[in-house]
């Protein structure tokens, strides 16, 4: 279903060590905040940036006797996300408690889905360049609560806690170790973000923490991965380390690169990689150990007795599936086939739904390829210059469509079209009317104009003589020709012809 465009897989990244060549094996766990007004188990708002501790219901602050009640919309969003990732939807799922102590976790446990996640196996096609894409398999998606925020820098002796984020719904999207390089990892995050934005299930704002990634990295000798892929036996691979809580694709790339080289150096020195959780320090561009496997928490997962298993109906899933928007891969394929665009142009235009929708309105009833050129080269270029977004473009899709139609009809030249675009961009107005009013229309039938000129000259011999004395009178002939042509002739062309015919 994904492969309406033919793809080949990218080559895995190879890092040359001192002794051998090494390949990377990467798997990601993405925590994506569910786009929803209310939290996963309470009615409190999820709005980012509110006063600390203002979006807090009694259940969020874990007051005695308070109970969670599932927010059905968050479930719907998770199902929608699963469907968008071509994944199995589990009609039966259940919530478990993950127990640990931390001040930003008021309950002393996070409600998550360990044993029965709501979404099972799916896949994401990660485009690397035209014709090249990596198919990354999704292992599972489960719903869970976010924690609050501990603030350690407000007071020299005390720490503060903001519970606004406590209990906000997260989808943890877990990939298989199918990613083979830092660039692929970054591209995977961006592709996932694109899909989630298309679906409207996560705003993908990494700066605000709406999307965060835990990255599992290991290295292996060339050829080992294929053995793993064949057998599923992890012993063919190296020991992995987990890089926790990354919130930028740039840092993800840098951190993976650093981490892979660190592991290679250790192995080539005869050392062993310890399975552990590490943190990336962007300032120093290095990863540091956070806790080893031995220090790992025992989370004592068990089914949450406050919540019944989550049982949903296939019909409901089908309804959600029916309401799914066209997704990036399909849209891109359609743009290629329906509009004859290059894969590159189609990718640019389908990067987000606003761009794609804008383009489609521009292309309506005219040449798609031409429309794509104008959207990508002229409009995007101009917007970028002004640091503007498509949503605040001064030129509407209808206006740009008008410009494209005038070009396509041969009414204006490409050169004039650029002038016209600038006028529309800065002054606004209907492009066709501007072309009319300012006489920008291209003359197409020079013979007809010439005939009209000859006719006017023949009919006014006296004026011809006067004009020969006083070239300023040329305007009279031009006016007459324009009148005769019903104003459709290009005044500049008429002027040129009259001057020539009168021998001025």
């Amino acid at each position: 279903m994904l492969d309406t465009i033919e793809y080949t897989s990218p080559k895995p990244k190879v890092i040359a060590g001192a002794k051998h060549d090494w390949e990377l094996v990467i798997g990601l766990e993405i925590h994506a905040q569910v786009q929803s007004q209310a939290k996963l188990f309470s009615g409190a708002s999820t709005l980012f940036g509110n006063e600390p501790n203002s979006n807090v219901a009694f259940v969020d602050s874990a007051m005695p006797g308070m109970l969670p009640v599932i927010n059905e919309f968050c479930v719907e969003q998770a199902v929608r996300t699963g469907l968008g990732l071509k994944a199995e939807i589990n009609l039966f799922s259940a919530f478990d408690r993950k127990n640990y102590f931390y001040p930003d976790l008021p309950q002393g446990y996070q409600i998550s889905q360990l044993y029965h996640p709501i979404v099972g196996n799916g896949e994401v096609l990660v485009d690397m360049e035209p014709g090249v894409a990596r198919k990354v398999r999704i292992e599972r998606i489960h719903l869970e609560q976010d924690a609050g925020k501990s603030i350690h820098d407000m007071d020299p002796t005390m720490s503060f806690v903001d519970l606004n984020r406590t209990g906000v719904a997260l989808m943890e999207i877990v990939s298989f170790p199918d990613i083979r390089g830092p660039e692929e990892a970054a591209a995977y995050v961006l592709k996932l973000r694109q899909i989630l934005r298309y679906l409207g299930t996560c705003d993908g704002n990494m700066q605000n923490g709406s999307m965060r990634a835990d990255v599992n990295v290991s290295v292996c000798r060339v050829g080992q991965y294929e053995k793993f892929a064949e057998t599923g036996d992890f012993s063919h691979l190296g020991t992995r380390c987990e890089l926790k809580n990354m919130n930028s694709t740039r840092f993800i790339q840098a951190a993976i690169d650093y981490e892979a080289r660190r592991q290679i150096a250790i192995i080539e020195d005869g050392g062993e990689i310890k399975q552990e959780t590490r943190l990336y320090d962007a300032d120093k561009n290095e990863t540091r150990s956070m806790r080893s496997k031995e220090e790992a928490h025992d989370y004592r997962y068990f089914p949450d007795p406050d919540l019944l298993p989550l049982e949903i109906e296939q019909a409901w899933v089908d309804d959600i599936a029916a309401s799914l928007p066209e997704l990036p891969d399909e849209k891109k394929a359609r743009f290629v086939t329906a509009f004859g665009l290059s894969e590159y142009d189609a990718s640019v235009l389908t990067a987000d739904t606003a761009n794609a929708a804008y383009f489609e309105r521009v292309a309506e009833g005219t040449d798609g390829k031409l429309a794509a050129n104008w959207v990508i080269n002229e409009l995007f270029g101009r917007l970028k210059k002004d640091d503007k977004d498509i949503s605040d473009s001064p030129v509407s899709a209808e206006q740009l469509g008008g410009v494209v139609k005038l070009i396509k009809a041969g009414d204006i030249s490409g050169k004039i079209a650029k002038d016209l675009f600038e006028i529309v961009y800065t002054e606004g107005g209907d492009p066709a009317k501007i072309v009319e009013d300012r006489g920008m229309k291209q003359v197409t039938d020079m013979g007809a104009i010439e005939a009209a000129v000859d006719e006017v000259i023949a009919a006014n011999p006296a004026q011809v003589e006067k004009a020969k004395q006083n070239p300023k009178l040329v305007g009279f002939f031009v006016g007459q020709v324009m009148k005769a042509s019903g104003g459709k002739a290009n005044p500049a062309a008429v002027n040129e012809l009259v001057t020539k015919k009168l021998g001025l």
Partner: protein
Amino acid sequence: MTDLNKLTLAEARDGLRKGEFTSSDLTEACLTSIKAAQKLNAFVHDTSEQAREQAKAADARIAAGDAPNMCGLPIGVKDVFATKGQPTQAASKILDGFKPEYESTITTKLFDAGAVMLGKLNMDEFAMGSSNENSVYGPAVNPWKIDDRDLTPGGSSGGSAAAVAADLCLAATGTDTGGSIRQPAAFTGTVGIKPTYGRCSRWGVVAYASSLDQAGPMTKSVRDAAIMLEAMAGHDAKDSTSADLAVPDFEAMITGDIKGKKIGIAKEYRIDGISDEIAKLWDDGAAMLRDAGAEIVDVSLPHTQYALPAYYVIAPAEASSNLARYDGVRYGHRAQIDASEGIDDMYEKTRAEGFGREVQRRIMVGTYVLSAGFYDAYYNRARKVRTLIKRDFEQVFDSGVDAILAPTTPSAAFGIGEVTGKDPIEMYLNDVFTVTLNLAGLPGISVPTGLSSAGLPLGLQLIGRPWGEGDLLNIAHSLEQSAGFVSKPTKWW
């Protein structure tokens, strides 16, 4: 008007409606008796101001002809129920000073029905215990006495049982996780019903073990239990485990007619160590039901012997997680720490200071059974046992049995300090007849049916079908009538 506090709910309701006395009269009578009963240590938080206001409001409703069954009836509320603006600390130091900004669904429903809250009642800390000795307020004392020893009223709803038995209130709320309503009812000669799991909302009830906890009334008669349960029961959207089922008119289901009812006697309940006295009480109870027209049949609940160990895995497991929120960060007790100490020190000291020994023991047991490597051997195994126990009951009820008759407790009330402080298993054995119902989610009621040779009340337990509280109350009423238990403790306090 004297002794209004001795009335049952039904008598008081009828008297209020006839205008024989007012809710304020009833309330004052109870408040006076509470004041005179400090030695029982049953009421631990005074809410008399709220009580007087509620009584006045109830009198106005009665005068206006808008009087639901519970209107104007003074009750006590177990300290485990969140009561808005009133101390709520589940008898724990860790909730020292805690006054919730919310009202539990159960108390909300009772107040909406016009009930008057006299005060908060003593209990075992976080409802963990069978003697009410695990309480930051000190032990509640049983109004029943046979010598100079103070006896426990049972637990965890010991304060509720003592208060009802001593006529300090007309009735009280309780909660039952492994027998915490039924065992104290049996120890004090009162009636206590644990409804089907999901019948009463858990919202606003300080959690012990979420899959087992269930609130219920503790009363002076079976009829009263029916009246009060109806006011407490019902679906609550705020509790996902609450059942969306209509609440029948339980009182109307008490017809006195149990002809043709099949009552099961489970041979597995004839455990070693059951006293002759209890065995006789049980036989007598069966005979009474037979005389009233019921058919007595032998049934088998083969997995009964595994119930107590399964309970003492599942309940502590859930408790260890439920009680994690008491960390000193947001409310309740917080230990003082030195500048050199960190958050883990704060947690450790707060919880060491704030939780009593039994609570700590169960948190440790619960943490252990959920630990990596032990989860399958303990917790998962206990869950499987639970499924088997549930199936035992289903098979019995599927065979046409309407209720199962069993002793409530293996013995009569014991003295304060007699069991506690020794092997905790000995205390846990008090729950041997009661925990199976919690594991199966079934309703059960304890009815006083006789006195021990020493003169202490003894109770029998009836176990009903899921959601069959009405039928169960009817059978229990018949047993109550046949037994004719009218003894009251002699006032010594």
